[in-house]
């Protein structure tokens, strides 16, 4: 295993939730980066070009969908898969997610962290092929 591990950016404003996602990602062998609001999240994507983004919808400042749009508009970032978290749990948010080509998954809070990590692996494997 000489190749560098894939980098995952976690954009989530709840600090301990963010920290725990990072912790689990690292323990699963990924490199984890964190952003705690929308603006910082977008800046982090641009700066670090992560392999995948875990994105909370309800964020202070720019919300998750705005970030999805911003990524899609940038040819350098549009290929980066995004996994969405929402605490609304309404049908509308789910349907909304299907409008974005870069959304590769959708979890309603509270999710099982193990499911998220598993899904991250699956999405990255799909991208590799």
């Amino acid at each position, binding site marked *: 295993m000489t190749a560098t591990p894939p980098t995952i950016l976690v954009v989530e404003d*709840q*600090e301990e*939730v963010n920290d*725990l996602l990072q*912790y689990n990602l690292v323990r699963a062998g990924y490199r984890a980066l964190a952003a705690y609001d929308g603006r910082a999240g977008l800046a982090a994507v641009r700066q670090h070009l992560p392999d995948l983004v875990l994105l909370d919808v*309800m964020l202070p400042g720019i919300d998750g969908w705005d970030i999805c749009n911003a990524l899609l508009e940038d040819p350098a970032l549009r290929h980066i898969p995004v996994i969405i978290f929402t605490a609304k749990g309404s049908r509308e948010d789910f349907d909304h997610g299907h409008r974005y080509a870069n959304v590769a998954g959708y979890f309603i*809070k*509270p999710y099982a*962290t193990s499911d998220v990590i598993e899904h991250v692996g699956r999405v990255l494997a799909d991208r590799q092929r």
Partner: protein
Amino acid sequence: MITGSLLILALPLLVFTLAASSVLWRFYLQQLEADIAAQALLMADTVAPSLAAVATGHLPDGAFSPEAIASRWRRRSDARITIADARGVVRASSVGEGVGAPIDDTRRPGMRTALSGRSNATVWRSPNFVNEDTMYVNVPAWYGGQVTGVVRVAHTLTSLRKRVAQLRQTLLVAVLLYTLAIGLCTVAFAASIVRPAERLQRDAERIAGGDLSHRVEVRGPEEITQLARTLNHMTSRLEVLEGLRRRYVSDVSHELRTPLTAIRSMAETILKYGDSDTSLRERYLPRILTQTDRLARMVTQLLDLAQIESGHYVPALTPLSLAEVLDEVALTNAARAADLGVALDVRVSDRALSVRGDRDRLVQVFMNLVDNALRYTPRGGAVTLSALSTRGHVEVTVADTGQGVPPEHLPHLFDRFYRVETARSPLAGGTGLGLAIVRQIIESHGGRIKVTSSHGKGTLFLIELPGASPSPLATRSSNPPTTESQE
């Protein structure tokens, strides 16, 4: 139903038409008889002398001969004149019929009766030609006290009948057209009411079925459009309320799921990696407790809010001493304030100051406000509760010397779930429901709450409550009831 009412309308008109034409017929007939009788009388007088000459053989000067009289009538188609002498022999006829022959009374009745001196009139119905009815008027010709002959005028009734028939037809057509017109008007009117009403009902059912974005068409007569407008107004309000409800449910879902996510992530991670990384337990188990408490607090507050907002909540208003309420709140928070190094004071100049209210709910109000004030005031600061009476109102203030609220947040402070600090902040133990509950309680008491704040210097909540007259309190504080009647 419409056909029925039209029949009821048309039937009397039909009966009237038939009756009117029959009355008219009889009237015309009488008129005709009178006309003919007058003519016949005139003729009889004219011809009487010459008829007398038939008997005497001498025609007096200036007398008209029967032939001359009859021929003058020849041109008239409807009337036929026959003149007979005293013996009953026909002397002249305007149609030149049976002259010289005796009167044939079987076909033309009444001539002999007239010869005996009695005028008469008959309507004779021809057996051959159904429509060739004829009116016969026979008038005796008197001369020198003697009946010298008879003049008969026969008049066919064909044209009269035709005229009456035409009249009846015209009337019938008029009745028919009138009924038809009324019918059409009725149908049109009914349709103009019924059709929009049916449309309204369909639309209302669609709205009742849950499509609150649907609006009914405002069209049709005044009453209907009025109803439609009212319905649309109602639907708009429902739509707004439904939007609020949806947002509220969505907000509640979000607010409950957020701590649950943290709790689940912590528990799951400890379970999975706790053995290999012992720091996880130390770090996250207390956080699980904190988040669980916060969740429980939120559920309690949500239930409180739901109860107060349900419309069933009417505060049980009893006269309360404000000083007592504020003292209780201060006492409950004294230990915590001391721990935090914040001075907590109650300043009520008038100990008798009272309000009418629900004691437990008002305690809840000031507990929430003091809880906030203590939370957002740094060590060394002060939190002061004070009360004073103004113009029938009681003003209570909760002031702190804390961090304050940035002005852009002030308008939202009383919104449900609204918090100034982000979730990252270490003070994120709040739920954002406290001030929403406070406002609901104050408003249910008929009061108002305002907030002023200067960032970095402190915050002041001002509560205005309707005051209570101090006498009931005085009564309660063991004064004899007679004090009231003495005044």
